[in-house]
């Protein structure tokens, strides 16, 4: 089953997506990632103010089946965490690109976005992994 990979987002090989809003990067996990994990039941998210470098672990997503770390695709400061969904984590399964976003980061180096994958490139990564 093909997963939804919106064309207007950037992706990391580790299955995070980034939506750019000015100097803010909104970050979540891809539809492929949520589908592979299955029912998500726990989200560990950083507090606002935390400084992240590109590739840092910023939290973890736990499903009934498995635990997965989540990595920051960009460097910068966490300005907001979507802590409101920590008791209704199914929203990450249902709306991974909308209500299921995880953190917003004020980017310190927007040029890092150039190294991320396009939707087409990420589709190949997801396809190669299959299920």
């Amino acid at each position, binding site marked *: 089953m093909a997963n939804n990979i919106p064309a207007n987002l950037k992706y990391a090989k580790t299955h995070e997506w980034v939506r750019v809003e000015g100097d803010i990067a909104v970050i979540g996990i891809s539809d492929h990632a949520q589908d592979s994990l*299955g*029912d998500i*039941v*726990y989200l560990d998210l950083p507090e606002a103010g935390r400084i992240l470098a590109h590739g840092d672990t910023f939290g973890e997503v736990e499903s*009934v*089946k498995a635990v997965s770390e989540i990595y920051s695709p960009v460097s910068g400061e966490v300005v907001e965490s979507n802590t409101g969904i*920590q*008791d209704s984590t199914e929203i990450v399964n249902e709306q991974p690109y909308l209500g299921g976003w995880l953190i917003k980061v004020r980017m310190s180096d927007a040029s890092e976005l150039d190294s991320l994958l396009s939707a087409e490139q990420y589709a190949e990564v997801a396809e190669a992994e*299959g299920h």
Partner: protein
Amino acid sequence: MSDNNLLKTPLHAAHLALKARMVDFAGWDMPVLYTGILEEARAVRATVGLFDISHMGRIHLEGSGATALLQSLTTNNVEDLKPSEAQYSLLTNPDGGMIDDIIIYRAAGEEYWVVINASNAQKDIDWITQHMPDSVVLEDWSSRTAMIAVQGPNAPAVVAELAISPSLKELKRFQYHQGDLLGASTIFCRTGYTGEDGFEIIVPAESAEEIWNALVAAGGVPCGLGARDALRIEAGYPLYGHEIDDTTTPVEAGLMWVVDLNKPVFTGHERIRAVKTQGAATRLVGLTLPSERLVPRQGFAVYSGDTLVGHVTSGVFSPMRSHGVAMAYIAKEFATTGTALQIEIRSKRANAVVVPKKSLLQS
């Protein structure tokens, strides 16, 4: 993805048609989920779910001495079984360890069906064969038949209606009936592994897919091994490799209710008697994590403050309670109901409370 080296049940094609996600379970290519573990588990509690459990072993034992054989190899009292009754029991080794947990069905005086775990099938068959007199014949019916669990409050009505046999609803728990389902010779047993009412049915392999599809059409929700595991943990049922193994006795496991120390001797009875007399150092308990969404998993350490008091054997995010629940072997001083403990989940300590295994669903 299907792996061609794995064993396939007679329902394998049906699982692929339903777009199940398949996993290797004890060498079998089995569905772990169809739509979602939580949704499937909740369907079993609310209506009726279907599980392919054909990977479990089904053996037929018949002949003079079959009763004595089972009496000597298993812990429960086979003489308590009337024809058309089944019992939960244990195969034990000379050290009192649990080789497997099994269900014995008595068909007639010296004729039995025994259902064994997939992961232990060859070990169990070898063990029984080693001890079997020449007058008893063991036949492995596993590949000739399929086994489907139909579980949930609507299960008896669905099965009885499909079998056009209203009297099936009158069967008591652990009674079984040999009858007809869509023209196929079927064993209907009022058993299950979910904590819900229902049946486990054994059908000919060639009829399995038609029967499965008819059960789906009748409202049965296909459920994978993920939901099965979640449901059995909520119900406080043990699983070989988690709560049960060859080095643990039924005393620690809280399974003395299926051990009859008054019957004629069985393998391992001296050791089990001794452990019972001394008292076990550890006990299998339920742990509830009422304010915790982290999932306690097998092997996680359990603490009382700085003292390591045991390890989790099984755990899950409870589909019904929406928080973590677990089973764990805990040092007996800390195993009293109501004791506050902490489970180490990666870098965190999650608060847990000891509860009876059977009340995890209410915890």
